């Protein structure tokens, strides 16, 4: 639900830079799995969710791989519906690789659509190459199920023409005061905006207040006192933010200079830079929750490559995934897409460390963030909680009532999944 944000145009220079670097570094980085002889021929089909300029950037790496292995042909298809993936895999017409947000890992693994790749990449090898959170996100049920592509997290972006860094709120109480005073001082404008009824955007507040949206065993505490506190906190913004605020309105307001700051992710900052001027875009970490003294902890998620049951040449598929995510490819790609590299070495590359945006997102990961659950149970949380948030925001329900209804629905959903898994 958060992977569909459209991606903004990237500089042509950046793309060219990717291509050049790839050609220079490709040879050394390929073939990481010693002992396995890889047959570098045939077709690899990848179902992915890249679009627009992101796609252009990623295609550079794909082309470099094809250049490196002339007998390999790679087909890219934009298709991310898991139901269709499963159908296609069953019919034998599915892709070799799926690139999906990491929260799909559990469901796809439990369904048997993707297969473990421990024999090609052990958990320890994974952890030594990729960041802790990224490595965790592709492991499910004690197996490695994928190679992490990129990491994503939400943070605060602000307009330097309207604010200075020291004006930004440090705590959640500050944030609400800031919101009130800013709109009082600037009628028609808003302090800080975000997609307030979006579960992904609000998850950080829930975790910051001490509620857990979903753990690996199917337990959720959205209706706990902590959850109620979080929702109460969010809902009070109804009095100061536009009443029908959503992602679209928030973006429009920020782009127009009618909002001083926005909570959003790596996919969005290029667009904001274009709207308000890249030099005017500042970054800050999310505030600390006063009552718990814990920072607001948004999901640390991302995308990963996974090997499907259909893969005709698994060794080749894995080799491609590793090539795609090697240090130099990641550094060049992320420097242009603004995504956070999952590869540790890439994160230390000067191209990345000198990039203020990526550094800011990395800083947010360090300051506060929880691994994006990749259990199938997480899927049962989105809609009930989103409906609860909306109902409370609109004043139709109290946080207590709405969240306890959501909790019941979530529990039923989890129960359904457990039954399906058992039978």
């Amino acid at each position, binding site marked *: 639900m958060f992977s*569909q*944000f*459209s991606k*903004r145009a990237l500089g042509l220079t950046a793309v060219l830079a990717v291509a050049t670097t790839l050609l220079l570094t490709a040879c050394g980085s390929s073939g990481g799995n010693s002992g396995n002889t890889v047959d570098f021929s045939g077709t690899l089909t990848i179902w992915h*969710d890249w*679009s*627009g300029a992101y796609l252009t950037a990623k295609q550079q790496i794909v082309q470099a791989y094809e250049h490196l292995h002339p007998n390999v042909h790679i087909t890219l*298809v*934009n*298709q*991310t*519906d898991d*139901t*269709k993936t499963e*159908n*296609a895999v*069953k*019919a034998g*017409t599915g892709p070799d690789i799926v690139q999906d947000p990491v929260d799909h890992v559990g469901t796809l693994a439990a369904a048997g659509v993707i297969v473990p790749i421990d024999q090609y990449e052990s958990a320890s090898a994974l952890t030594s190459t990729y960041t802790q959170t990224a490595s965790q996100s592709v492991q499910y049920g004690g197996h490695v199920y994928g190679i992490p592509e990129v990491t994503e997290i939400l943070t605060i972006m602000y307009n330097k023409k309207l604010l200075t860094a020291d004006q930004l709120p440090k705590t959640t109480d500050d944030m609400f005061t800031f919101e009130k005073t800013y709109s009082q001082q600037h009628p*028609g404008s808003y302090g800080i905006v975000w997609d307030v009824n979006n579960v992904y955007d609000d998850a950080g507040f829930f975790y910051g207040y001490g509620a857990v949206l979903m753990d690996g065993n199917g337990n959720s505490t959205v209706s706990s006192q902590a959850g109620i506190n979080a929702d109460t906190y969010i809902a009070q913004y109804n009095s100061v933010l536009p009443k029908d605020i959503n*992602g*679209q309105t928030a*973006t*429009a307001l920020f*782009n*127009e200079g009618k909002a001083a700051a926005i909570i959003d992710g790596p996919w*969005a900052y290029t*667009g904001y830079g274009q709207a308000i001027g890249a030099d005017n875009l500042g970054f800050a970490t999310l505030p600390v929750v006063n009552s718990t003294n814990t920072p607001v902890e948004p999901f640390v998620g991302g995308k990963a490559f996974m090997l499907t049951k259909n893969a005709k040449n698994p060794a080749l598929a894995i080799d491609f995934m590793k090539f795609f995510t090697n240090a130099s490819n990641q550094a060049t790609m992320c420097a242009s897409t603004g995504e956070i590299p999952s590869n540790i070495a890439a994160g230390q590359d000067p191209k990345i460390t000198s990039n203020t945006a990526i550094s800011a997102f990395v800083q947010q990961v360090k300051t506060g963030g929880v691994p994006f659950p990749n259990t199938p149970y997480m899927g049962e949380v989105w809609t009930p909680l989103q409906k609860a948030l909306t109902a409370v925001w609109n004043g139709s329900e109290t946080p207590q009532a709405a969240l306890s209804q959501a909790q019941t629905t979530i529990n039923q959903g989890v129960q359904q999944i457990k039954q399906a898994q058992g039978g």
Partner: protein
Amino acid sequence: MNEQPVSAASIKAVTATGTATKTVAITGERAGVASLFRRFRKNSSLAGIYVFLGLMTIFALFPLYYVLQASFNATQALITTNLQLVPTHPTLANYQYVIQQEPFLRWLLNSIIACGVATLIALICATSGAYALARFRFRGRQVSLLFLFALQTFPGLLAIYAYYDILTLLHLDGTIIGLSLVYAAGNIVFGVWNIKGYFDTLPIELEEAARVDGASYFTTFMRIILPLAAPALAASALFMFIGGWNEFVLAKLILNPDNNSLTVPVGLFQLQQDQYTPWGYFAAASVLVSLPLMALFLYLQRFFRSGLTIGSVKG
């Protein structure tokens, strides 16, 4: 099976209502009706009627006008909380953007292919069956007709998983041609009904006479009946096409989300949903997709409503 717009229902209504709507006020009678109405309404205020018509016209036209002017408005100007009814700095930038930066023309092409192929399949498959149902008597005929009628009430959306399976097996999943197959499913049932209804109105003596002249039934069907049924075939084709043109939900579920594979309704929806896409682009795209259809419709309405003239004498 596709959602029938009200306009598609109209053809059924017009067929179904039979004589009542088809009866035309003979022009000569008009003067009589007019004088009668003059007396009949002498107490009612003509001004009141004009006010009512004026308000209705505002209701009818305001949304269209607003979108039209928005399409010429710079995006900045639309994100305002003040009412603006005239573009401050008229520009064609929105149109340019939609055509050059968004795959708008591709969406149009996709829609034309999906609807065109679906219409073609359905027409070919429906016509012979409709003829048999209209002209031949056989056991199970009545049941078949009722059965077809029942099929019409089954929206394709309900069987979406079956279509996923069929399309995957045919290697057509996510494609425009696959979508057209699903559209054809709805069209064919509509087609059989609609075309059969027209065949029913053709005198059976046509075939009998041809038979006497030594022509086979098949020759008669191809040479005489089909040309005579051309208006019904054309009307059915048009409604099938428009039905698909308006269809959103199946296209949304079946097509790959890649921006280039969408049909116009899904593409336009995506354009409006898009986080960074302001209203101007959407408005321009709406105007582009509506104008040709509106023109076509206004032109064709004379044929649809033969007899349902709205003061066309004075128009």
